[in-house]
């Protein structure tokens, strides 16, 4: 039953741009693409937050780095998307290793504040880097190509590319969470000291998870660069990291589809509110405050209330 439902959603997602075109709502293909890209980053954050227990307030760094890799590559005439993804993955892995190695030495509130501060370090790096646009950001001259006879220059082609990445990332995450590594990570979140006592090198495991999440976010960042044809330091700002956390929280921390749901809920909310109100963030804030105080485990928790009552407390924040 669940597999059928999943299959239905995947087919629906594949057909959406065609449906949008048939009904004259081409505009929404762009919105959907944005949702899928943010779903990828949000899921990567959910991976370390919901399963690894790391409240990272600097996840937008990797997202921004990916976008900058795309921009800088295009600036120097690189047009192959494959090379961009490879470099984006390497750069964000390196940054993840650096930030993780420093931040994971600390815990709890320190971890939150330090990831935030380290993210600002990268933000100011790009603000000051005048050669690549500095404060103003940098334009990307045209979308890279992937070859293989596939065309991603149009809206539909690009949407399907992003959808493919979303599926790849989620298959990977699902396998990872079921593996020994994923189970150990879960154990560490629930009781780090005990996991340590059993003999797990908890720091190394958490660092590995942190780097994996960074790489996924970097790939998503390269996609947002290719989508917007623009990269700016704003992508790395701590408030952007805050928004990613908000997405995960809205969707449901530690629920497998929490990232996707959260990105969809947040961006649709933004889409609707910003067309009706000039100062729409105030409403986003109020809704978020309400969700946090009433349903702190997000939309997913509302949907599975019956189930989780039966199974007891399985998913923790």
């Amino acid at each position: 039953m669940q597999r059928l439902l999943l299959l239905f959603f995947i087919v629906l997602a594949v057909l959406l741009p065609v449906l949008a075109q048939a009904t004259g709502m081409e505009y929404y293909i762009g919105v959907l693409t944005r949702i899928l890209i943010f779903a990828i980053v949000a899921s990567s954050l959910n991976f370390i937050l919901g399963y690894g227990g790391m409240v990272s307030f600097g996840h937008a760094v990797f997202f921004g780095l990916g976008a900058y890799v795309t921009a800088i590559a295009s600036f120097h005439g690189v047009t192959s998307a494959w090379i961009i993804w490879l470099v984006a993955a390497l750069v964000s892995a390196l940054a993840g290793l650096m930030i993780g190695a420093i931040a994971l030495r600390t815990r709890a509130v320190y971890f939150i504040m330090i990831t935030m501060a380290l993210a600002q370090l990268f933000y100011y790096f790009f603000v000051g880097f005048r050669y690549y646009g500095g404060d103003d950001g940098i334009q990307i001259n045209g979308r890279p190509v992937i070859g293989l006879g596939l065309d991603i220059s149009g809206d539909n082609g690009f949407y399907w590319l992003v959808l493919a990445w979303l599926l790849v990332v989620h298959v990977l995450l699902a396998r990872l969470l079921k593996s020994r590594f994923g189970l150990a990570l879960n154990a560490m979140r629930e009781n780090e000291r005990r996991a340590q006592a059993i003999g797990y090198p908890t720091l190394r495991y958490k660092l590995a998870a942190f780097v994996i999440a960074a790489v996924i976010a970097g790939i998503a960042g390269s996609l947002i660069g290719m989508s917007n044809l623009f990269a700016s330091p704003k992508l790395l700002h701590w408030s952007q990291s805050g928004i990613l956390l908000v997405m995960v929280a809205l969707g449901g921390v530690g629920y497998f589809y929490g990232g996707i749901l959260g990105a969809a809920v947040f961006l649709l909310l933004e889409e609707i509110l910003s067309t009706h109100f000039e100062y729409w963030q105030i409403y986003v804030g109020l809704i978020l405050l309400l969700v946090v105080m009433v349903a702190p485990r997000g939309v997913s928790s509302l949907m599975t209330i019956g189930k989780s009552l039966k199974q007891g407390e399985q998913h923790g924040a």
Partner: protein
Amino acid sequence: MANLIFEQVLNSLQFGVMLFLIASGLTLIFGVMNFVNLAHGSFFMIGAYLAAYIAGATGSFWLGLLGALPATAAIGFLLEWLVFRRLYKKDHMVHVLATFALILIFNDGVRMIWGPQPLPLNMPAAFAGPVMLFGLPYSSFRLLVMAVGILVAIGLYLLINRTRLGMWVRAGSNNLEMVTAMGINIRLLFRLVFSFGLVLAALAGIMLGPLVAVQAGMGDDVLILAFVVVVIGGIGSVPGAAVGALIVGVVDTLGRGLLPQLFALFLSADAAASVGPALGSMMIYLVMIAVLFWRPSGLFPARS
């Protein structure tokens, strides 16, 4: 050059003193209530806005200052009662999300009330001109800012170390359950500490208002600086916040002000203009990393 260095050193001290006002409240709120308040920077902004509004209506900076402080305290009191007190027992992730929501609400709230343009806040006429210090001219208002900050710091020291309220606060950050068991009204204590911390942030916003632009989001980057201060000093420690604030104030101001000039001495003008400002803004984070490397819980760890 001597003139420039003199001015930069004074500016850095003045900035450090203001950072202390913001960070001390943040660290107290964390120390006593174990609460992570991202909206702390918003009160820096709210204070500045209220003062600018009142000063604009009455034409007096002083009335703005006098009116904005109790108004901020009242908002803090109300907010503690409405939101924060329901969150103390929840985990830090919930604190982060709820207070992030408040940032969104406040930033758009002030835009809604006062419009997207920055609000003017003029310094008082008596302090508009420069004074001569050791034969060099320096802004008398900046000197006033420094004086206010130092006076508040001394007052805070006396309040925490010499009064009954301060004793409760110290005891509260040490062992909250014991304080409750002793029959202290913990709810009132929390509300007072909260409002007090927010008023300190607002005071910093009001004093810095004439020097920076009073606009939505002005507290967002200050918040991160305050976090760096708190992390360097040790979370929950007020003396740590003082030392951390001075370090960050000095490193940040000197880094931004002098580093580009220093690079210009041995790099091409073009390269210096590109590398200098970037590295200048990154300096404090590098200092923070260095401190954490040798002292993972800050310079003055408040509790083990």
